[in-house]
């Protein structure tokens, strides 16, 4: 099945399931049945289905189909579960526990959607950089770039062309090369800093001699290289953080759901 065909099939199937659930809910409602139990168990089943992706990822040796297929199923089931969740909750939500449970569900759903979006957009942004950097090797590469830049700056003082470049390096570039980018950059990486530094470096040309201009150009390349590395690191880290947040919230939600089910049945006198 081609990508688009599969997408249409999945969307149609999800809508069909939702229509079926809504129809059954109406049926239960018309017969004055227990709507909450019906939607609750449907939601519980759908949520349990979402955990199948994690299980599949752990079972590498078993031939259970490609993970990509399971991820698709996870995403559409997530949409289904979110809609059933809206059918299930009573408005307004009362009580601390119920609020916490609903919030956990919303956070999981939102983080899932965000994860889905950034896992589609991040690869394209990463691929825009000519070279691919493996995440675990980025710190090593950053260090190499910083060392190289330091040597270029030191060498520039050896020629009798003044200390402009080395002074600028110490004041502006040293912190850039030797410090990590902040959390805000990790979340929203931009090229603002690189552009500013490159502009400032280009402005130094009027004070530099022939050798100094050469060193300046080399430093500009280093600035670009460091920015590429930072950009790759930030995007990959953001994706990892988002994934970790989604997984952590998922397990928190599982615990809350368990408690919720026990409480519901205790209130109903079944336990």
């Amino acid at each position, binding site marked *: *099945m*081609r*990508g*688009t065909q*599969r997408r249409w*099939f999945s969307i149609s199937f999800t809508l069909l399931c939702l229509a079926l659930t809504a129809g059954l809910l109406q049926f239960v409602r018309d017969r004055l049945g227990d709507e909450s139990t019906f939607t609750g168990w449907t939601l519980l089943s759908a949520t349990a289905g979402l955990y199948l992706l994690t299980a599949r*990822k752990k079972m*590498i*040796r078993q*031939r259970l*189909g*490609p*993970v*990509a*297929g*399971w*991820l*698709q*199923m996870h995403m559409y089931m997530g949409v289904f579960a979110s809609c059933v969740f809206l059918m299930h909750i009573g408005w307004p939500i009362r009580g601390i526990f119920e609020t916490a449970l609903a919030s956990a569900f919303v956070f999981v759903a939102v983080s899932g959607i965000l994860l889905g979006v950034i*896992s589609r957009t*991040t*690869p*394209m942004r*990463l*691929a825009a950089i*000519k*070279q*691919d950097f*493996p*995440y675990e090797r980025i710190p090593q590469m950053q260090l190499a770039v910083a060392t190289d830049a330091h040597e270029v700056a030191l060498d520039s003082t050896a020629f009798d062309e003044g200390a402009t470049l080395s002074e600028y390096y110490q004041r502006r570039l040293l912190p850039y090369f030797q410090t990590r980018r902040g959390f805000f950059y990790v979340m929203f990486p931009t090229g603002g800093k690189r552009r500013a530094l490159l502009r400032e470096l280009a402005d130094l040309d009027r004070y530099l001699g022939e050798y100094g201009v050469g060193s300046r150009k080399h430093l500009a390349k280093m600035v670009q290289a460091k920015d590429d590395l930072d950009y790759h690191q930030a995007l*990959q880290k953001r*994706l990892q953080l988002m*994934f970790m947040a989604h997984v952590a919230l998922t397990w928190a939600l599982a615990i809350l759901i368990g408690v919720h089910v026990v409480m519901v049945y205790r209130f109903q006198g079944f336990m």
Partner: protein
Amino acid sequence: MSTAVEVQRPDRWDHPLTDDMSDETIAWLLQSFPFSDMNRERFSKSASLEDILRNDTRLLELSEGDLVFREGQYGGSAYLVLDGGIRIVLSQLQLDQDRTRKRNDWLQQWTKLGRGLLSGKSWRDKQGKRKKSRTQSKVTRTTKAAKSGTRGDGENTRIFLQDIPGVVDEHATSEVGVGELFGEMAAVTRSPREYSAFAERKSYVLEIRWQGLKLLKQDPEFRKLLDDRYCDRILKTHLRETRLFRFLPDESIDHIVASAKLESFGNLEWYADYRKSVGKDARARIEGEPLIAEEGSYATGLWIIRGGFARLSRRQGVGHRTMAYLGKGQIFGLSEIVHNCWFAGDSPPLPFQESLRAIGYVDALCVPKQVVKDHVLPFVRRTELPPPIVDPRYQFGQPVVDASLDAATQQVETGLLEFLVERRLMNGHKSMVIDTERCTRCDDCVTACATTHQGTPVFVREGPQYGSWMFPHACMHCEDPVCMIGCPTGAIHRDRESGLVDINGQTCIGCKTCAESCPYDNIRMVNAEDCKGRAKVDTNTGLPILQASKCDFCASARGRPACQTACPHDALFRVDLSDLQQVSTVLGKEKNA
């Protein structure tokens, strides 16, 4: 607790082909042709003729009808007939067992159908397969399936033909008599068998593995035996299997055999030259490639590629532009010859419009123009022939017209073609490709690979990149696996059925030859471990014992490899880069919808 275990460092002949070669058998073989005619002094003391026979050969006792090998299978051995008679089947031999197997496959297809919906099997796979089956359509004639049976068990199981006269009547066959060799071309060129062979009567055959064959070729008489055999028989088989020649009568084939010239270009062990050329200017590199036919020169013959890859290029400005690469069985120069023979009329003949250069090593056959005109073209369907050249770039006495850079007429964009050829990636039969525009760098592929290979991944998620396509360092199961050339024990070998390149951990002696020969750095040396996961160290030196490690395509687990199934975003897939059609479909301009 000890984390290492001391063992004796493995040696070249620790695992002979068989343990059954007795002194009497070897003495008898040494008195038989061709070994009796060999000069034993030509062999070194460490690999004497006796040693080669003891370790690299085995005696096969075949009953009437026993199949030695079948067309399409891979094998690293040649066979020498010692007694009896072997018949080779030149046309495709179908067995009744295949049909039964096909019927059973239908059941599996139905069960797969349900899984398909969930599987997310990308359209890439299917497109690739469909195209491949179209491009690989072989010359086959519908024949009755031969009745067959099996005898023996375990490793000694043999398929045998029940109706030998029927097979001989139905197929084009040829006999191999006592003292003659067969099956050596597939072993030497690391390519699939081009015919099937079976014992016509009770026969004794000596199987010689490729490593032994290489050593035996030190003897000039033996080398001559191989060459004569090629001209006598193999060439005919090869021509029969070429699509263009499929309707040719026997007399025409004989004419072609008599006049065709087999030429080799480049070095069979091309990886050394390739390593030296890395980093050189592209123009200098192309100009350094052996020229098979040059654009603008007389179209004197038709070139058929027998092995290796050739670059089809055009001069563009002061450089060369790659138009395509040709692999085994592909033809060069047909358009010009057809044009000159049929459409040129009174106008002067056209020269070659493109150049053909050997990438690494090429075995090519040149059929003279006159022979093509008299013995080939009359037997080829008009619809299969190329159209006349309307707008030639080269005409004798006319200025050369520089072609437009517009790639619309090309199957694959020039940049990608140049990239694949420069890095010799077109050799890859099952190349791993990662779409970096889909890959989230989650490393699930590496984790899955490590899980299925005792904790050590057998590929690296890094490698050359063209645009968004990354070609990681994972074994490509090459069309021409040069890693196999130097292996002294035959540990690195092709699987007989699938053609996948695999390493036998038992016979690998850790000599690093394969790792150093692999032009793509896709083989790594790792510490050898025993079954308990303890590192093996040499008893004498205390140094770790190494073993070659590479992607085995998860051959032991059926289905797609673990890395591919584990990718949550369908970013990792395999492509046959030797098939330009598949490259165009999967990596071409149109990206996945």
